[in-house]
């Protein structure tokens, strides 16, 4: 019967065809050992693909991994996290400060202020060695002038009906100013100067210099238009000469300016805008120097120059126009964001872009003319494997060279002789935050007691498989800002009960804590999808219930959690985490001005001393002084316990044992060195020296 035969034959044939294909594919041994090229090819796996290979537009970590190899910034961080020049050879940080010289002010002796008169007095004081002018290198008069500005005002009040925005034309009569060039940035310069001038700057009235058609200009607005005093920190970068982009074009100061402009152009929608917003101007000084002037004191602004520099000659207006026409797009609306460059980038970094198969892999090859010498590896492959288990199998099979172990695997794999492993402490921390707008959390004793009731060591041991470290404050533990002298809260439920009793919370007949007849009850929430936070929540709930606190818990979807509860301050306590940067600025998270809706101080923390410190820290350019203040701030926050600081996660990266560093000495001899992690625990600091050897042999020191 034909039908019967077909029914039997079809599956058999299909199966045979599929199975026979097995005999055509190479096995792992062929791929790893039978391929000498494998030793100069480094393969890394990632769970997600890159999105945009343009450092000014990308915001995800996968894109950053590739951009970091293809592009280079002016600076980066050395093994010890201090700054190191890359495209910039060296830099100078100084300050230009401006003081308005109005027409109607009077000097302490009652004489009228004129720019020349004031300058002469100041010169005299400087010659006399007045400490207020110790840092001043140069003083000069900048003439004034008039300009017209459009400002946006929000009309309010009953006569204007409903509030609406409209623009008002304002004439600004900029008075002459004295410009001070300071050897280094000094946030207290004007305080000292004001002492010398007996409160002169306080007498300057900015409203006098502003003329508007409507009486809408407030004093603050006028002060923004004509600031009586102004700090302009300046970074002067000296660029390295003779550096070329991967297409052979020489890198120069124009590229730096272009990169900055690309970020700030509204059409490009760069996620980097907030980092560069404090920049006032970027001026090339000849081909090999760039002067960056900032609008205000903002020390964390410096590190943003680690961002990759774009090639101006490939993305300028004319080139974008050509690309738009070639792609049949409207040249008027075509922005850097639309350019095909973002899928085939060219930078100055050690690796050049070769191929990108979306959601499969990105291949880079080495840039032979890299200024520091070509990397040892010939190719870098970034393979996208979304599933951790298959990524692990790929690593064991030798078809990828690195694997980030899951926490539960660490104990088993740490000592596996097949691999080298590097443990790394994270930059982010997990905490429980208390809404201090709620009366029960206003008492620091209550917050301390809640923290003391939680056994953090146990959470680390059982929830995180030991892959975390206790933390006591808001800074990453690897930075100098972290104050190692601050002790963590002890685990002490008895002590917690005593503290609560001090605060007036005593156990009632049913065993629940209460005060004036009100029970101590609140809800602890977190987002769903994060098992660790959920476990922390449950552990905390259990610990607090044992003290006699009625705690309810709730998890909700991230968007709802953030938009409806956290941003609106509609919660009692949250389990959350912060991913921190390497700078000392905590202004947005803990400053009392940031307590509004949709701001980040959602717990409503307020401490005047801490507020002052946070402002001073972000304005301090001297590292030692900044560190000292940051450590004080750490202690203050730890004393106040707006959060119960819990832990910082750790991770373990496994690397093929055969990956080592190969360095060629001046006399040509090759030395093989082990991989050294940087202070953060990152292992790729010497990535350009990496190579794979058939058998690992390290040169003895």
């Amino acid at each position, binding site marked *: 019967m034909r039908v019967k035969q077909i029914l039997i034959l079809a599956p058999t044939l299909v199966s045979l065809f599929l199975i026979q294909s097995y005999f055509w594919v190479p096995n792992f041994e062929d791929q790893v050992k039978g391929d000498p090229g494998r030793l100069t090819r480094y393969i890394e796996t990632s769970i997600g693909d890159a999105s945009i290979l343009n450092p000014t537009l990308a915001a995800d970590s996968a894109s950053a991994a590739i951009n970091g190899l293809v592009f280079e910034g002016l600076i980066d961080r050395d093994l010890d996290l201090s700054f190191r020049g890359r495209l910039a050879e060296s830099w100078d940080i100084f300050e230009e400060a401006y003081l308005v010289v109005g027409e109607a002010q009077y000097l302490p002796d009652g004489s009228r202020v004129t720019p020349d008169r004031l300058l002469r007095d100041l010169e005299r004081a400087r010659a006399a060695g007045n400490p207020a002018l110790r840092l001043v290198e140069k003083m000069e008069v900048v003439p004034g002038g008039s300009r017209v500005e459009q400002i946006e005002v929000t009309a309010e009040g009953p006569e204007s009906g409903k509030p609406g925005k409209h623009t008002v034309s304002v004439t600004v009569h900029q008075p002459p100013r004295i410009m001070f060039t300071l050897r280094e940035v000094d946030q207290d310069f004007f305080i000292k100067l004001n002492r010398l001038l007996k409160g002169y700057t306080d007498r300057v009235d900015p409203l006098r210099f502003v003329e508007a058609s409507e009486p809408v200009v407030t004093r603050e607005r006028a002060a923004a238009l004509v600031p009586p005093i102004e700090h302009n920190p300046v970074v002067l970068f000296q660029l390295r000469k003779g550096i070329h982009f991967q297409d052979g074009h020489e890198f120069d100061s124009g590229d730096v300016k272009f990169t900055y402009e690309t970020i700030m152009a509204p059409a490009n929608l760069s996620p980097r805008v907030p980092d560069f917003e404090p920049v006032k101007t970027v001026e090339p000084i000849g081909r090999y120097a760039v002067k960056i002037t900032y609008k205000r004191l903002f020390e964390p602004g410096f590190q943003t120059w680690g961002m990759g520099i774009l090639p101006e000659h490939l993305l300028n207006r004319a080139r974008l126009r050509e690309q738009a026409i070639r792609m049949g797009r409207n040249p008027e609306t075509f922005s850097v964001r639309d350019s095909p460059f973002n899928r085939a980038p060219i930078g100055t970094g050690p690796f050049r872009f070769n191929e990108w198969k*979306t959601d499969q892999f990105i291949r880079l090859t080495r840039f032979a003319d890299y200024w520091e010498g070509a990397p040892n590896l010939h190719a870098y492959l970034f393979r996208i494997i979304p599933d951790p288990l298959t990524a692990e199998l790929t690593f064991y099979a030798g078809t990828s060279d690195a694997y980030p172990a899951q926490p539960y695997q660490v104990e088993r794999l740490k000592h596996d002789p097949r691999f080298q492993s590097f443990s790394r402490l994270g930059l982010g921390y997990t905490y429980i935050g208390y809404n201090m707008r709620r009366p029960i959390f206003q008492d620091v004793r209550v917050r301390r007691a809640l923290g003391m009731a939680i056994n953090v060591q146990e959470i680390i041991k059982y929830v995180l498989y030991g892959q975390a470290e206790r933390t006591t404050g808001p800074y990453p533990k690897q930075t100098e800002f972290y104050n190692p002298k601050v002790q963590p809260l002890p685990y002490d439920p008895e002590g917690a009960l005593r503290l609560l009793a001090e605060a007036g919370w005593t156990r009632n007949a049913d065993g629940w804590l209460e005060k004036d007849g009100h029970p101590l009850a609140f809800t602890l929430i977190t987002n769903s999808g994060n098992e660790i936070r959920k476990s922390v929540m449950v552990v905390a709930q259990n610990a607090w219930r044992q003290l006699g606190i009625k705690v309810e818990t709730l998890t909700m979807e991230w968007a709802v959690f953030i938009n409806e509860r956290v941003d609106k301050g509609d919660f009692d306590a949250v389990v959350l985490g912060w991913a921190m940067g390497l700078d000392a600025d905590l202004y947005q998270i803990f400053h009392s001005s940031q307590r509004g809706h949709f701001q980040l101080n959602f717990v409503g923390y307020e401490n005047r001393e801490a507020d002052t410190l946070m402002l001073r820290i972000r304005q301090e350019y001297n590292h030692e002084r900044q560190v000292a203040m940051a450590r004080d701030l750490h202690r203050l926050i730890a004393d106040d316990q707006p959060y119960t600081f819990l832990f910082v996660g750790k991770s373990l990266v496994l690397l093929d044992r055969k990956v080592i560093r190969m360095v060629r000495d001046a006399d040509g001899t090759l030395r093989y060195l082990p991989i050294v992690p940087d202070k953060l625990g990152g292992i790729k600091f010497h990535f350009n020296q990496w190579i794979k050897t058939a058998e690992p042999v390290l040169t003895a020191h």
Partner: protein
Amino acid sequence: MLSVLLRIGSKKLWTLFFISVISFGVIHLAPGEPSQIDPLNPRFTPEQLERYRKAFGLDQPLSVQYVEFYRKLFTGELRSFKDNQPVLPKIVERFWNSFPLFLVGTILIWCYAFPLGITGAIRRNSLLDKMTTVVVFALISIPGFYLAYLLIIFVVENFHVDVIGIRTFGRGGVPAVLGLMDRTWHLVLPSVLGATAGVAVLSRYVRSQMLEVINSDYVRTARAKGLDENTVLYKHALRNGLLPFVTMIGLLIPGMIGGSVIIETIFAWPGIGRLGYEAILSRDYPIVITLNFMAAVLTLVGTLLSDLLYMVVDPRIRLEKAE
């Protein structure tokens, strides 16, 4: 006939319109915003976020957004929020990646489900039937990802070959035959896994359909005529038993754009399922809504095709003339 087709067509268009409105609305009603507007960088000011919203057109009323969206979709101007690439070429590329999986998976399902189902029906309650029933129910119940892991570990440990991705990674410059076979090998595990549930379910349908037919009067008549068993079963019974499955051909069509998120994720397969899944996570509205819309179109085309096929194979079914 033509007027009937027109009538059906216009009905389907109306349905499509409502689907497009609903799917657009549902996605915009879901909490959360595109990841570009919900950034991790805390230094973003509300004004800067507003600029993103404006650039993505999210500051407009939903009705305006709806019209704009479909205008851009049909003129090919629609771009992904994530990487600013045009949506349609992105989807087409992923479609061709997923298509072989769909094709081989479907072939496997149809090749295996029928023999299994038919044998089950013919030898009802035999040991073979009972065993297939157990296996089939096991396959339906085991979570796909678990089976996938077992299979991957088994093959990798025992045969030492690459099984993930669409080809052996980093292998280039091989002759065409080798390349083709390499790709075929990489299809084996994911398509077998993708087919397991399908085989299980479909074979049960075939079995019950066959059982019903075997017990019907005309089969008894055929046997009474003295026809041999094979003719009775494979000519008289099977042909009628197959009727309902003809309609399933039409219903396969929307599956082409579905793709399995789990299988594609585990096998690092750059397919359409993963594209859609990742787009949903990052609220990449252009991709999500376009995929949704295309799935709706294909479903409607599929049902239309089923109806037509049924008319062709079963003379008893005829569309009533419009009166």
